Structure formats: structure tokens, C-alpha cells
């Protein structure tokens, strides 16, 4: 049985990246800037031994996208690393090289939210249909289907 991860231990390692807070008994969140996101992730992977990625989530909060990496390990405490990305320039360096499982989440987020991950080896369409138009991101809150735009499916009428 491994030692549980305490808030003090998490603060020691993650305090340099931004404010650390305990959200629930087994969930610790750190809010950081996007330049430090990679380093915060490395710190969580190494010293805090959170070597497993649960998921990457995105919330559309209006003027910013809240991108969160949820990590955990043998101690079963979840570390959430949150990065706020401005809507005008939503990009954050890819972490595919240090955390392999993040690659497929990044492709999905790129597809549905239009967030760019520089450094990703294969950032192309994964979840939307092949004939979906470019520059349309359906999970954004301000997205509405345009009249007259073809969003994929079938063009020929029913005979």
C-alpha cells in the first residue's frame, strides 16, 4: 500500500506553478499558465508519481477555454492541472511526448473545440465525419449551424 498524497506534499511540488487547492478529499487542483503547463505536468508525473492520465477535459467558459489534465497514480489522489486558454488564441504545447495517452485526447479536443496543440505529431480529424467543414467547432458554446452550409451526410435527394 502506497502512502496517500497529502495536500502539503502536492503544495511543495506544485505551488511554483500556481495556486493549489483541495477540491474534494481525493482531488487537488492547480491552476497554472499555459507556458508552465508542461513543467507542471512533468512535476506531477515525476515527484508526485501521478503517472496515469484519467482524461483531458475542456470547458467553454465564454472568454476562455478551461483545459484540465486529470492525473492519478497508485496513491489514488487525482491531480487536476488547469490551464485557461484565451478564446482568441487557444493553443497549448502538446504533451504527447511526455504522456503518450494525451495524444488521442488532444486530437479529439482539436476536432471539437479548435484548440491547437503545437508539437503534436498527427493533429488531424478523428471524431467528426470526414466531410465536416473546416473551422467549425461544434462543442463551442457560440457555435450554431449555418443555414446553407453542408455539414456532411448525403447530398443527393431521396429518389
Amino acid at each position, binding site marked *: 500500500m502506497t502512502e496517500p498524497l497529502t495536500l502539503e506534499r502536492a503544495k511543495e511540488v506544485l505551488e511554483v506553478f500556481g495556486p493549489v487547492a483541495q477540491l474534494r478529499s481525493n482531488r487537488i487542483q492547480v491552476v497554472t499558465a499555459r507556458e508552465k503547463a508542461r513543467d507542471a505536468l512533468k512535476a506531477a508525473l515525476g515527484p508526485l508519481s501521478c503517472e496515469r492520465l484519467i482524461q483531458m477535459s475542456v470547458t467553454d467558459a465564454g472568454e476562455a477555454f478551461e483545459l484540465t489534465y486529470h492525473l492519478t497514480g497508485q496513491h489514488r489522489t487525482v491531480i487536476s492541472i488547469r490551464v485557461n486558454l484565451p478564446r482568441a488564441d487557444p493553443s497549448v504545447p502538446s504533451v504527447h511526448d511526455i504522456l503518450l495517452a494525451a495524444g488521442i485526447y488532444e486530437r479529439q479536443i482539436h476536432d471539437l473545440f479548435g484548440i491547437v496543440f503545437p508539437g503534436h505529431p498527427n493533429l488531424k480529424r478523428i471524431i467528426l465525419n470526414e466531410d465536416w467543414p473546416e473551422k467549425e467547432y461544434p462543442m463551442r458554446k457560440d457555435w450554431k449551424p449555418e443555414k446553407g452550409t453542408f455539414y456532411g451526410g448525403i447530398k443527393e435527394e431521396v*429518389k
Partner: protein
Amino acid sequence: MTERTDMSLSERLATWARLKSPWITIFNSGACNACDIEIIATLTPRFDVERFGILAKGSPRHADILIVTGPVTRKQAPRLRRIYEQMPEPKYVIAMGACGSQGGVFQGLYHVLNSVEDVVPVDVYVAGCPPRPDEIINGVVETLRLMGEDVARGGKEWRKKQPAPPGEPAGEGRKAEVGP
């Protein structure tokens, strides 16, 4: 159904056989699987559709009736059209459940077309979410009645909606404008 006298013996035999034993194929175009489970329940001995000659086939090339479950997702639409085109004439389509008729709970989402009718012509709708097995059997039997009528009237043309005569306002369209 009235007997037609201008049909050859082989044609009459084929029609008789078709009405006695409709072969169905099932296509899931993005349903939640509840409809598919109900179809599986229909095939079990409790409901025993083989007493009507209804046989589930794996290939659309062997089938007379295509049962489509679910709203058609944009990815599935070309596949559904291709499967429909593979079926031999005469072919009939049953749209199953609330999703098949107008999208159901998926109506208006970015990735669905809302209705099977936008992709392939539908002959019978089976209501329900999901429909019970006896309602599915009823839908297939209704399709058989349509088949017999079509044979008697020489094609599907008699069921097509006539366009409104000039001067009169067109009838209310099927597609109400829905969406986000």
C-alpha cells in the same frame, strides 16, 4: 389484395413466396441499441417471428425489408444509402422508433440528419422508444400488406403524395424547421 390476372405463373409464385416469408435485415444508423435489443427479443422463441416466415438475414442482398434503427448520423448516411441500394427490388424500409422517424432525443444535434426519410424512402414507421416486439411484428405485417397492395396496383406510385394543384397553397411540409 386482389389477384392480378396479367401475371405469369412464376411472377405469381414469387409474389406469394415473398409475402409468405419476408426476409429482414437490420441496420443501426446511430441508435442507442435499445431498438436493436427489442429486435433481438422479437427473434427469440417467446415472440417467434418465424411462424410468420420472418427471417433475419445478415446481408442486405438477401433481404426484402430493411429495418433502420436510430437517427441517421452524418457518418452513417452514405453507408445507409449504399446498403439500401444493394437490396434487390422490390425493397421496403421500416424506420423504427422515435429516432428513426424524426430524431427522437437526438433531434437537432450537430451530427445527425434527424430522419431516415432524408436518406432512403420509408414505407412504414414503428412508433415507440423503443417499440415493443409485438409492435415490430405489427410493423412488418403492415409492410406485407403494403407489398400486397403494391403488387395489386402495379408499383409504389399510388402511395406517393401528389403535389398541390396550382392555385392552392401547398400542404404543410413534413419537415418543420427544427434545430439548435
